[in-house]
Every structure is written in C-alpha cells, then in structure tokens.
C-alpha cells in the first residue's frame, strides 16, 4: 500500500520539478541562441575565407549532461510496452544537444565562425537490469576560426 503512495509521490515530484527545470532551461537556451545568432555554425569543412585575415583556428568543445526524472522514466517504460514515439525523452535529447552546442560557442567568444561541427550523444548511468537510463551526455565539437576585423592592419613587417 505504502509503496504505491511512494511511487505516486515520486511521479508527481518528477513531473512538477522536472517540467519547471525544463521550462527554465529552454528559456535560457532560446535567449542564448538569439544572442549568438551572428556567428555562423556549420557542418561544412570548406568555406571561402580570406586567407590574410585568418588569425588562428582551434578545436573547441562543449558538453552537457542532462538527467532523467522519475516521471519521464515511467512514461518511457509504458511506451516500451505499446510502441511509438517516446515523447518524454525527446525534450531531454533536444535540450542536451542545444546546450552542448551553445557551450561550445561560448567557449570561443571571439570566434568568427565554427567549421565542421559534430555532435555526439551517449548515455551515462548504472546499467542494472531495472534501469533504462540515468542521464544523457551530449558533446559538440568543431573548429573555431578567428578572423581579424577588416580595418585592422597586419602586424607583420610590411615592405618598406
């Protein structure tokens, strides 16, 4: 009897706390994406760049680990019985990836563009017979290219 009550409490806790955290996170993500709009992010490797303006290029990464809550896990295991889209995990994946991408961009604040961006996802957690997943890790990595501004002159010694 008490086990049912405990399950109910955990589910309710998971739902309310989880959806509050999710809304907050999404608002933060959207705000930061809007702010970072100017700097292009692409999966392409070759973009025409003015060679004389390239200052440096380096690998940057960003990662985020988002955890599952009780409510989502319950929904997912119910879905496992009947089949179909596991809607409760979709927002989790989305948030983790967008967060990882944003962190990658934030780690290179002066960059002009990001090339060859790749995103990897994996699950972290105890894999006992009863657990599905404990948390999700998303990692975004790419090459950040820093271009000098147009009116800046080259610091190297020019011809006399």
């Amino acid at each position, binding site marked *: 009897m008490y086990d049912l009550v405990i399950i109910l409490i955990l589910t309710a806790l998971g739902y309310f706390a989880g959806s509050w955290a999710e809304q907050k996170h999404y608002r933060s993500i959207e705000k930061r994406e809007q702010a970072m709009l100017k700097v292009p992010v*692409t*999966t*392409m490797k070759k973009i025409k760049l003015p060679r004389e303006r390239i200052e440096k290029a380096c690998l940057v990464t960003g990662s985020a680990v988002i955890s599952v809550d009780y409510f989502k896990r319950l929904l997912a295991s119910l879905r*496992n019985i009947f089949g179909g889209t596991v809607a409760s*995990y979709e927002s989790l*994946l989305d948030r983790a990836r967008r967060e990882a991408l944003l962190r990658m961009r934030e780690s290179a604040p002066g960059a002009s563009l990001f090339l060859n961006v790749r995103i990897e996802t994996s*699950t972290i957690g105890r894999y006992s017979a009863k657990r*599905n997943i404990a948390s999700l890790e998303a990692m975004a990595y790419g090459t950040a290219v820093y271009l000098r501004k147009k009116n800046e002159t080259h610091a190297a010694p020019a011809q006399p």
Partner: protein
Amino acid sequence: MTEKQMQNLAGRRKKIVLTNIETIPGRRIVEHFGLVSGSTIRAKHLGRDLMASLKNLVGGELKGYTQLLSESRDQATRRMIRQAEDMGANAIVNVRFSTSSVAQGAAELYAYGTAVRVE
C-alpha cells in the same frame, strides 16, 4: 507557421536536396543559415521485443528492429527538413547521422546538417 501551412509550403516548393558532401554537385551555394537538426526516439511494442529475445537464440535479421530504425531515420530526416524549410533554405549539405541507445528497446536517431540556399 502552423503544421498545415508548412506542409502546404513544402508542397509548393521544390523538394529540399540533401547531401553529405560539401556542396550540391552542379549547383552553387549562395547563402547559409546555420545548423539544422532532427531527432527522434521511438520504441517498439512488447510483441516485437519478445520476438527479438527469441531471435537471440537462433540468430538472423531482426526485422522488427530494422523497421524501427528506418522509421526513426525517416522521422528524424523529416524533422530536419522541416526546420530547414522554416529557415527558408532549399538544401541541406554535410548531413551527418548519429545514433545512440538511450533506452532499452528504443532507437534514437539524430540527423544534423547545414541549411543552405543554392541556385
């Protein structure tokens, strides 16, 4: 834009081209909009899981799961295309896929690429 409006728009426009190379062969990229992605996670029902466990004994192709993965792929790609159309692109280049096992008996697929406009 509502779902219906987007579908109408998709019907009127030419189909979006996808490649996983840098360019669309024969066309020229004039504008790029940024990263677009589509992700999905689908589960198969209990019957298919049971069949899969039985198949574990005898070996062979798990047709149920193959179908599940291809459905996931279709849905993820469709979502990515919708995002690109939303941005006003007509092609996606350098498309990459990534899968991960997120839950037991569920397939997760992630497709991402750069949305561009070609002419």
